[in-house]
């Protein structure tokens, strides 16, 4: 096995051109599990950890934020990133253990594209743009087009995910995740809710209750017809409850060894109800 250790995106792309079958590794917190289980036997690897460009984030002039694919969760949990994208900070805090959060990244979460990936519902709620770059081209893809199924995405084999861009919304946002223990657990059901007052939009995205992350467009529309999201008045409990019910209807959960479809559907309804209540009481 060869391991390339590029120091720049350019070097990484060159390495990828030279060894097109190479697997990219960032924090390795998904990849090494696959390798240890013998599910994956890469002949060539490209370790992105020393590519500084991927480990930075920038506030853009158009009131958006671009986060490099190699920024570890640990950095999102606190500090300025937490101020800018609170839902992402909450999602990051739910990932694994301190060790995993020191290594794991959004690039890896996107690369794996598990419906239980905790970064993804946030990216769906914020309508994130995924940046992909190959040796001779770069493109931007909406997150909604990027994730295409269970652990499947639209990345081409010759592309590196360099980062994601999310809008800096004006309004409450939060993330909640149900697992069967109080930390370090794979999501059984999760939800991210984000409000943007200027556009009077509420967005809610669900994790682990379908083959991809699910944006509950019908419930969003319904809610924006019921209340003025830009106003800071407490939401009527019955409306919050009905919102939860409608969100649950849009989920497509399954039974597996982690939980039941029935519980997952119930749980996302409760989470939606609670998140909108938190939003309106903040």
């Amino acid at each position, binding site marked *: 096995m060869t391991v390339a250790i590029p120091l720049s995106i350019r070097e990484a792309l060159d390495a990828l051109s030279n060894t097109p079958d190479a697997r990219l590794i960032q924090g390795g917190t998904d990849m090494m599990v696959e390798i240890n289980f013998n599910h994956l036997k890469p002949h060539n690897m490209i370790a992105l950890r020393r590519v500084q460009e991927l480990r930075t984030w920038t506030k853009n002039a158009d009131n958006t934020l671009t986060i490099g694919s190699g920024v570890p969760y640990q950095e999102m949990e606190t500090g300025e990133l937490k101020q800018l994208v609170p839902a992402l900070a909450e999602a990051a805090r739910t990932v694994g253990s301190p060790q995993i959060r020191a290594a794991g990244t959004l690039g890896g979460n996107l690369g794996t594209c598990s419906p239980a990936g905790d970064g993804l519902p946030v990216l769906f709620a914020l309508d994130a743009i995924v940046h992909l770059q190959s040796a001779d081209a770069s493109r931007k893809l909406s997150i909604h087009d990027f994730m295409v199924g269970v652990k499947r995405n639209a990345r081409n084999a010759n592309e590196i995910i360099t980062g994601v861009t999310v809008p800096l919304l004006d309004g409450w946002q939060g993330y909640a995740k149900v697992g069967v223990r*109080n930390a370090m657990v794979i999501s059984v059901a999760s939800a991210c809710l984000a409000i943007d007052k200027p556009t009077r939009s509420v967005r809610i995205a669900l994790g682990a209750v379908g083959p991809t992350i699910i944006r509950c467009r019908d419930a969003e529309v319904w809610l924006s017809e019921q209340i003025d999201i830009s106003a800071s008045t407490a939401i009527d409990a019955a409306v919050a409850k009905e919102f939860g019910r409608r969100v649950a209807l849009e989920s497509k959960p399954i039974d597996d060894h982690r939980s039941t479809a029935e519980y997952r559907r119930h749980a996302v309804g409760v989470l939606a109800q609670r998140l909108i209540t938190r939003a309106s009481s903040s």
Partner: protein
Amino acid sequence: MSTVKQDVRARDILGASALRPDGVAKVTGSFSFSSDMWAENMLWGATLRSPHPYARIISIDTTPALLISGVSAVLTAKDVPGKATYGLISADQPVFASEFVRYMGEPVAVVAADHPETCRRALAAIIVNYEVLTPIVDPELAMLATTEQIHPDGNLIRHQHIKHGDPHATGDITVEGNYTIGMQDQAFLGLEAAMAFPDSGGNGVELHIATQWLHEDRGQIAACLALPEDNVRLVLGGVGGAFGAREDISLQVHCCLLALRTGKPIKMQYSREESFFGHVHRHPAKIWMKHHANKDGKIVKIESRMVFDGGAYTSTSPAVLINGITHTQGPYQCDNAVVDGYAVRTNNPPCGAMRGFGVVQACFAHESQMDLLAEACGLSAVDIRLKNAMRTGDKLVTGQIVESVAPVERCIRETDAIPMPDSMANDADVLEFPGGSGRTADRHNIVRGVGWGVSIKNLMYSEGFDDYATARCTLSNGVASLKFATSEVGQGFVTLAPQIARSVLGVDDVVLETSDTQIGSAGSTSASRQTWMSGGAVDGACRLVRERLFEHVGKQHNIDPIRLMVENTDVIDTVGTFRISVADATQGITLSETFEHHHRKTEDLDENGQGNCHVAFAFVAHRAVVDVDIELGLVKVVQIATAQDVGRVLNPLSAIGQLEGGIAQGLGLAVMEEIIMDNGKVKNPSFTDYLLPTALDAPRVVAVMIEEPEPQAPLGAKGIGEPPCISVTPAIVAAIRAATGKALLRVPVRPQDICL
């Protein structure tokens, strides 16, 4: 976590919080676990396992594996020179499956090769033709005579009936319930690992192994290898936890077979996934229980039917079953009982020993029943238990009189006296809420509940078994060295044994010799028994040496040895002024004695389940305070208050460690730990999906040690390893019931059981 006040005693004698000699090495990562062993020229061994819970083996073709370069041996059932089967109680488990595989993960072949990757390829190259059969996974079905018997020994591993007192007695009220206990795993952190060195002539083997009982392993291995026991030497490897999962043979025979076949050292180690298939689990059980009581809450009679799913092979099922049914009444008085227990063979994974050994299952049922009874009589959880509390001299449903110290009432009262935790602070950290880092709950979603559990647990082995322990003490030049075959699995005997020697002999320097089979058996590190049994053996050996020391000093200084005693580090004349340090007194001499400690004899049960089958008992009370998010069914255990009957605290730090660890394990069974089965297939053989409590799940433990020295116990100390994990499970479930009003008849309690 608790903090233990460090007792500033000058010496690490009994009663001091002596530190583990291997503690720093374990924390800093330099401790050598079994999986860290390595030898020049060694080969790796690996196991081919059945993917099916039940199938007939039509053929096995190993030639493609043998053709792979780097592969030295591929062994199957026909390569076992001795006994084809092994087992702790009944030798019904094949070294390799030959005709049938009876559970998913059953070993079919092993390979030896130059690299783990070569092993993996060799395993993949072995062609096994299976005729897949429909597994029998329901014990109720399996035990019917009309059902296909999946093993020549039949599907019913053991049935035991108990009839005690008047089987027709009735009271004013009855309460009954059907309880289900899921399959818990011991989930030790140090995976199965061993290294076998063949003797040069090929007539013997030395196995370095992480095990709970060297001598029992040796007997089983020697029989399968067709070697005299003396030619099979076992040395204890570094053990990373056990909890019962290292009582049965796993890779021992395979590793030795490969070493003898190849003439090279063989290293074997399981992966985490393989470990779930490589050892027994806690028996899942279904228990029906009915209590008859008077209006005032006094128990009149208990009826119960317990069905333990033993999985494909016997392991310790017969003993686990007996432990379960003989503890039906819990720590309460009960004059009349009718109980039937069944241990049944199925195509599920074999189940056997795990901390609590059958009593965990019975306790979940009897404690749930006590709460039903309390409700029916209008009594509190505490009062119903006090009203029925067992005392020394009371009888078990086996007719056995409980001669042990039995401070049940004190356990309950002292637990009750522990202050309740403060109610949730306004600025409480959301991480402390149910749901933890998932931030699912808001304050107003959370309801607090309180629940109780009290238990009785037998100590040592039962039913006529003489599980003695052996130790040798050698004293020379002021240094004591101790030799025993006791397995240190984390419980702390390596800390305790030197404390004993220091207390008895007045030495400070104590050397522990290698634990191996070059001395008599120590019995198993299980059944809460090593402090009592191996502790008794070390104490006995040290006392014999002390007698020899007194004789020696007496002769040298013309004093009647009977007048001598040890004070601190000196031998002194109790009626004179003579004093000599033990170090000086032992210059140039070597005193050595070996001692076997036997507990008192026990008996078999008769056909009515009557007989003095147990040695001794320990008791504990647990009170759980939980916060529940009722709508999502998520739980946070806030506090466990406990008062445990420990006899005597020999090392406060070790003792609290046992209590906190056991409580975490019992919490696991209450709310998250379960091997999930689907028609004989294990669905979650990994720590991703077999969930163990994390620091955010672990409760605050407030513990009181009840010290009433046990006259039967050599050091006055009872075994304390198992009780902490037994009644904490029903206490937590009772607290969830109190918060939610749900019946919750099954553990682990799942979120959907609470909120749907």
